[in-house]
């Protein structure tokens, strides 16, 4: 199966920056406290897996034309099968040391996500719901049928961690709607079984499945498809690595006002000059009066 790759050595530097800030962000989240039904999730570090949009354990099977905007990796298998094509706008690590390390870091990310608490139990289909940031857990298969809205309420640092203790099933044509500052890079799907995205779905977030990940025909994903042990199946899909931003609080208040201060000082000098002028006039006039009186004597 044809695989075309272009290099992107610069990506790793950016991922390091993201990782370094995550501890500051998590501290800020703890200080700000929780808003909504569940305590906010904490960003999951990806380390060397940060640049990857696809990681497979037992190989990749592709049908149709697929585009990966990010890095591809497979370990330990080196199988790239199927009749389709994969255009990788990034680097490709097939069965090598880089993919091995990325899989290890993806495993750490999985453990991190699976262990986050406290959790809100999911009992119904997530489709049609509007969720604030939090940690959402379900022991039975997690379903997304229709549109799931993730509302950050104006906080671009809001994090969602979905813990699917069984499988994740996204129905055909379903979608994720990110509103009020929600970012794809802050949505994580930890799947203990397998993840399946139905045809024509528009999905967001990093999917880390212990088994396999399958994207049906025409589905697009802004996020990642990581299959730790199983394979990744593609069918005319596009997976794009989302940009990740750690939002600062408030705006800038800098500048020293020197341009404004200079104008104020000019006014001040004028005022002082006026006072002096008046003072001199008073002194002179009193002198003049005294002289006049003196002159009469």
């Amino acid at each position, binding site marked *: 199966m044809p695989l075309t790759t272009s290099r992107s050595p*610069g990506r790793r530097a950016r991922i390091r920056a993201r990782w370094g800030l995550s501890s500051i962000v998590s501290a800020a989240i703890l200080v700000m406290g929780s808003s909504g039904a569940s305590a906010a999730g904490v960003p999951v570090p990806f380390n060397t897996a940060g640049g990857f949009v696809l990681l497979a354990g037992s190989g990749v099977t592709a049908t149709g034309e697929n585009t990966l905007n990010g890095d591809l990796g497979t370990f330990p298998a080196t199988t790239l099968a199927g009749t389709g094509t994969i255009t990788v706008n990034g680097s*490709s690590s097939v069965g090598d040391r880089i993919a091995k390390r990325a899989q290890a870091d993806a495993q750490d990310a999985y453990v991190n996500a699976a262990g986050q608490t406290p959790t809100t139990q999911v009992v119904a289909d997530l489709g049609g719901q509007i969720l604030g940031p939090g940690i959402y857990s379900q022991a039975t298969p997690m379903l997304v049928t229709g549109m799931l809205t993730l509302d950050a309420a*104006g906080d671009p640092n809001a994090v969602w961690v979905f813990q699917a203790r069984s499988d994740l099933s996204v129905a055909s044509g379903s979608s994720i709607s990110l509103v009020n500052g929600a970012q794809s890079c802050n949505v994580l799907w930890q799947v203990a079984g397998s993840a399946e995205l139905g045809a024509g779905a528009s999905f967001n977030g990093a999917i880390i499945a212990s088994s396999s990940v399958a994207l049906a025909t025409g589905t697009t994903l802004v996020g990642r498809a990581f299959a730790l042990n199983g394979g990744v199946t593609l069918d005319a899909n596009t997976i794009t690595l989302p940009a990740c931003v750690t939002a600062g609080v408030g705006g800038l208040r800098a500048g020293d*006002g020197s341009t404004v*201060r200079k104008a104020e000082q000019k006014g001040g000098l004028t005022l002082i000059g006026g006072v002096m002028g008046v003072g001199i006039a008073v002194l002179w006039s009193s002198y003049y009066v005294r002289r006049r009186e003196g002159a009469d004597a």
Partner: protein
Amino acid sequence: MVAAASVGIAVATGFLHGVGVRSAPTAMLQVNPPGVAAPGAEVSAPMWASAPVRLVIPSIGVDSGLSELGLLPDGTMAVPATGLSAGWYTGAPTPGALGPAIIAGHVDWNGPGVFFELHTLAVGAEVDVTREDGSVAIFRVIQVGEYAWDAFPTVLVYGELNYAGLRLITCGGAFDATTGLYELNVVAFAELVGSRPRSR
């Protein structure tokens, strides 16, 4: 054994295109800012990540190196240590890459600062960012807004984009001498419209 048929160097093709044409609002004081204008039809595919090293805004005479700005312990973005040099925020993508890149500069510092004229920047103006790998990201301004400092447009500035964008930030409005702070932030929003490869 590797089963891949061929692996080669391929030029990344454009994979994200803006749609539609939108008019460009002029700068005005906004308390509840409307959304930033959607990217125009000429928006260019994002570039690879590469740290920015130089910022040039020809129409307002800006030509500055770029320092790195991180987050301070209180969660606010750091500001450049000098008045005549701008800085790029390391918590956001590098200018030219997918997402909202952020460059901040002082409006004054013992006289005019590097972004003293930012509030006069016109929609359609060109902004060039030279990156560490030698390539140049070419942006075009799509909106310039002024926002009260306690109504900073966090989502507009930091929010997720499906194209390569740039936010230039400085202070503006009246200076409050009692607090030593400006009342407004000026933010110029720009989109990537082209690039120049590294020259030999």
